[in-house]
């Protein structure tokens, strides 16, 4: 009988309509159940995207790491087969080519101009600034009324102020750049609007760089201008595009980890208590575990194969797209025991929430610092913090490239 033939069965699998990706979630704190089913049954399989393309979805931890570390998989959005996240992302990447959409050696040339700003030592030096901003926001919150939206008064302003301070972007302009970056990370944004907003943001950064050419400043944009633009290594546009990348990446991801992470802790009072006590080793472990469990970068890391590559028993052909689903890898039971449980006592720091390979998040020491400061400070200042609406009223960011909660009404 042909159905008992494993080869025939596999062939038939390829012919059925692949599932749509991203998949709808059930529980808002967990990745889609269909993703777990795929990981268990056909860990590398085709999925259908918004544009009708059918790239490979890689779901297991080891395979995700293998793809992301393999330079035969390109990050260049323009390569044949690259699986775009949305129409908005495509036009944005065409309009402003940042180095996250390049391969080495171009990627390495740009990234190396920035890594000195994000060393473990340099970021540790920013701790007093992060603590001061956190303290000021929490005191302003205490002086305000309840209920209040934690995203609006704490989760978003903290990383936003920090990245502004680091880059030298005036925080007074936050309405402008927050609204634009929110729209650019919304997968439902129309391409025309994405293009317009991207150009407005880029022009804004170009202006900041131009001002620094006239008058040097001691901030990241100032140093980049002084050391790279004046020397002719970077054009003004290139420096602006690097600044734009850091500005968007620097506040959206951390903001959503603060919002969704706080909500998770409020649902787990014992865990919240351990974070509130503030033992640094426990806080650090809690941050790694929340990064793993929540993986707010929930639409996979995307690549295009430039050669035929055999991986996990599947041959991915040159010109085919690959989505390395880090949100699935972080829940792989082969790597993390009881992966759906929040467990501060597991060693979680090998999660792939920051990606893997040469494109792994440049700002991860900063993100870690902000989360390590934010969670215990918030829980200590407001020991009776609670969600002020019924759970079913919370709106989760299913339409956004970075997952989280749109608003988190709290009382204390």
């Amino acid at each position, binding site marked *: 009988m042909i159905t008992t033939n494993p080869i025939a069965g596999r062939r038939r699998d390829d012919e059925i309509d692949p599932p749509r990706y991203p998949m709808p979630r059930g529980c808002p704190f967990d990745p889609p159940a269909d993703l777990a089913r795929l990981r268990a049954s056909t860990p590398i399989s085709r999925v259908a995207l918004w544009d009708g393309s059918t790239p490979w979805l890689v779901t297991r931890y080891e395979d995700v790491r293998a793809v992301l570390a393999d330079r035969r998989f390109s990050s260049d959005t323009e390569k044949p087969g690259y699986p775009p996240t949305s129409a908005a992302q495509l036009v944005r990447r065409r309009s402003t080519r940042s180095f996250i959409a390049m391969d080495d050696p171009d990627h390495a040339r740009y990234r*190396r101009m920035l*890594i000195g700003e994000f060393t*473990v030592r340099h970021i540790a030096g920013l701790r007093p600034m992060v603590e001061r901003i956190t303290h000021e926001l929490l005191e302003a919150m205490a002086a305000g009324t309840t209920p209040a939206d934690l995203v609006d008064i704490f989760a978003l302003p903290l990383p936003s102020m920090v990245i502004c301070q680091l880059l030298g972007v005036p925080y007074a302009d936050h309405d402008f750049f927050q609204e634009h970056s929110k729209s650019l990370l919304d997968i439902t944004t129309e391409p025309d609007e994405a293009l317009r907003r991207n150009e407005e943001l880029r022009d804004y950064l170009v202006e900041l760089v131009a001002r620094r050419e006239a008058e040097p400043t001691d901030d990241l944009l100032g140093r980049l201008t002084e050391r790279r633009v004046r020397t002719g290594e970077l054009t003004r546009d290139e420096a602006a595009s690097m600044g734009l990348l850091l500005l968007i990446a620097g506040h959206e991801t951390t903001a959503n980890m603060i919002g969704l992470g706080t909500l998770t802790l409020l649902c787990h009072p014992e865990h919240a208590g351990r974070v509130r006590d503030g033992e640094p080793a426990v806080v650090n472990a809690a941050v790694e575990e929340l990064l793993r469990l929540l993986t707010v970068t929930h639409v996979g890391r995307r690549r295009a194969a430039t050669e035929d590559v055999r991986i996990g028993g599947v041959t991915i052909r040159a010109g085919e797209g690959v989505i390395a689903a880090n949100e699935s890898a972080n829940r792989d039971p082969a790597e993390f025991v009881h992966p759906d449980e929040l467990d501060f006592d597991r060693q979680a720091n*090998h999660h792939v929430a920051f990606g893997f390979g*040469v494109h*792994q998040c440049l700002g991860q020491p900063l993100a870690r610092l902000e989360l390590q400061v934010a969670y215990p400070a918030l829980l200590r200042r407001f020991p009776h913090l609670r969600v002020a609406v019924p759970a079913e009223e919370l709106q989760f960011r299913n339409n956004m490239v970075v997952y989280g909660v749109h608003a988190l009404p709290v009382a204390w």
Partner: protein
Amino acid sequence: MEVSVDRDSCVGAGQCVLSAPAVFDQDEDGLVELTNPRPPAEQERAVRAAARLCPARVISLG
């Protein structure tokens, strides 16, 4: 144990410094610096963790 690093391929993610600060450091430009190429036995676990966490896979153990 003997440790070596390929600085030319380092991406400055800093994972090694977090895992094994007694063995790895970053220079001013953010690139890995090996401060102890022959770490004592008690460092072995931390160094192996650093090698596994390194996203650019530039740490070799011998």
